[in-house]
């Protein structure tokens, strides 16, 4: 039986995801593949196409001129819209149809998680501190490229501009070693991005940073959510240890922008 917290968070995410995809909420419960044109205003404008599923129906949101191709080549089962071969063929079609031919690539599958419970925030190992940090800190450390998931890579301005807060763990010398940044989607939900710098992994630093950020988001009356690549077992385990549960899966075809890192590589 899902907890009240999970049900509430899931409800907000479903509603906001439907709005961003440009579909009705019940498309996600259709047990079918629903194809809709991309809305004019979207959270992730770099995507020519997004595919999203909550497990009982799949929605493809795609630039209008390509909906016919999707209808003609639609996979037999709705979840097959996530298959690498289908997305690869679609990416090739979009690229060839763009003038000049665009550079696109199909992203891997990401999993979206919402809170089902709120574990107690554990203490930190001796010598480490957890603090909130604002834009000044983010501006400085973004340039140092040590926190790719939380602060984004250079050029990922859409994510960086949404950042509302950061929870940073420092060691005895004051060096930031882990960070969870919170990005405000502006629609009732806030996304967490986590980094633990490599030499400080395995010390239990991820959970305090994620749990503190999650609690702050809830205190703002918003819904926290967490995403990671489906192949990122470590990140998946962190999510689960912080009380998050998988709610939906996402993939898509992005236009490659020079100098921007791969957002799905987290």
């Amino acid at each position, binding site marked *: 039986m899902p907890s009240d917290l999970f049900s509430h968070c899931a409800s907000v995410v479903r509603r906001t995801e439907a709005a961003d995809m440009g579909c009705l909420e019940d498309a996600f419960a259709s047990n079918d593949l629903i194809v809709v044109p991309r809305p004019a205003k979207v959270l992730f404008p770099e995507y020519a196409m997004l595919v999203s599923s909550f497990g009982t129906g799949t929605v493809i949101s795609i630039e209008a001129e390509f909906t016919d191709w999707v209808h003609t080549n639609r996979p037999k089962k709705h979840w097959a819209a996530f298959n690498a*071969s289908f997305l690869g063929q679609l990416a090739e079609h979009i690229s060839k149809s763009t003038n000049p031919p665009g550079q696109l690539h199909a992203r891997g599958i990401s999993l979206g998680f919402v809170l089902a419970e709120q574990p107690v925030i554990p203490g930190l190992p001796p010598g480490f501190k957890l603090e909130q940090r604002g834009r000044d800190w983010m501006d400085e450390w973004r340039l140092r490229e040590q926190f790719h998931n939380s602060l984004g890579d250079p050029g990922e301005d859409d994510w960086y501009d949404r950042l509302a807060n950061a929870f940073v763990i420092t060691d005895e010398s004051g060096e930031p070693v882990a960070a969870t940044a919170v990005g405000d989607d502006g629609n009732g939900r806030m996304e967490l991005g986590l980094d633990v710098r490599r030499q400080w992994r395995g010390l239990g630093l991820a959970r305090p940073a994620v749990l503190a950020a999650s609690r702050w988001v809830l205190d703002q009356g918003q819904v926290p959510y967490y995403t990671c690549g489906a192949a990122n*077992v470590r990140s998946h385990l962190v999510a*689960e240890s912080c009380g998050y549960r998988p709610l939906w899966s996402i993939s898509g075809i992005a236009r490659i922008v020079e100098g921007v890192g791969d957002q799905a590589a987290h």
Partner: protein
Amino acid sequence: MTGTRIDDPFRATQFAAVHAAYSHAFGARPDAFESGELTILPRLDAAPFPYIAVAFAGARGSVLSVSPDLLDVATTRRPPQHHEIVRPQFLTRFQRQDPPVEFHGPEILWALGSAPLPPALPARLRIEERDASWMNAEQASLRFPNGVGRPGVNARAERNRYAVAIVDATGEPMAVAGVFDSFGLLEIGVDVLPERQGAGLGIAVVAAAVRSILERSQTPLYGCAADNIRSQRTALSVGFLPILTEAGVS
């Protein structure tokens, strides 16, 4: 249910058993999944199934097994992080035109983090075990393709060991958790009849299967597609945690 701590003895034992089984099956060192790196290996002569390349990504180490003639290709362009090896852009480098090959995955593999309690069942339903003969005979019906397997697919007939079924008062199965061998582990595949979905029978039958495996002093394993959210929540509800992601070209 929040996951157990990484140092919990039960969880550590279960995870170690799964890592050891997969390391052994593909010729990797026992610590390959704790190495912090991507281990690249030639496919063994006695490969468990035909493939061009198959990758397993773990939290602290990953393994890529490739056709021997592709070892140079594999080593020249490693992904920035070891677990990214299962992403299509790295594995599809190994695609060939003749014969044409197909990318499969990613699939998430799950090991047990904590043992489930005995499941509670709705009234008038009970749990029964069925043997491998029943499973293989049931394949043709296609009612339980994950639970008993499909005819001629993935050698399920040889790998099937037994099934745990939730049956109604007439003995008719409503949900089946089939238990089959995967590299010495006992993997669970589950189906619930469409008209019986939404009542928690999937979680109940998987929990019962897990308990039967533990009673036999064996190690349970669960697998599902990376985009199968419902199956992932079933796994978590029973006490499984993600351990590896698998993808390949075959």
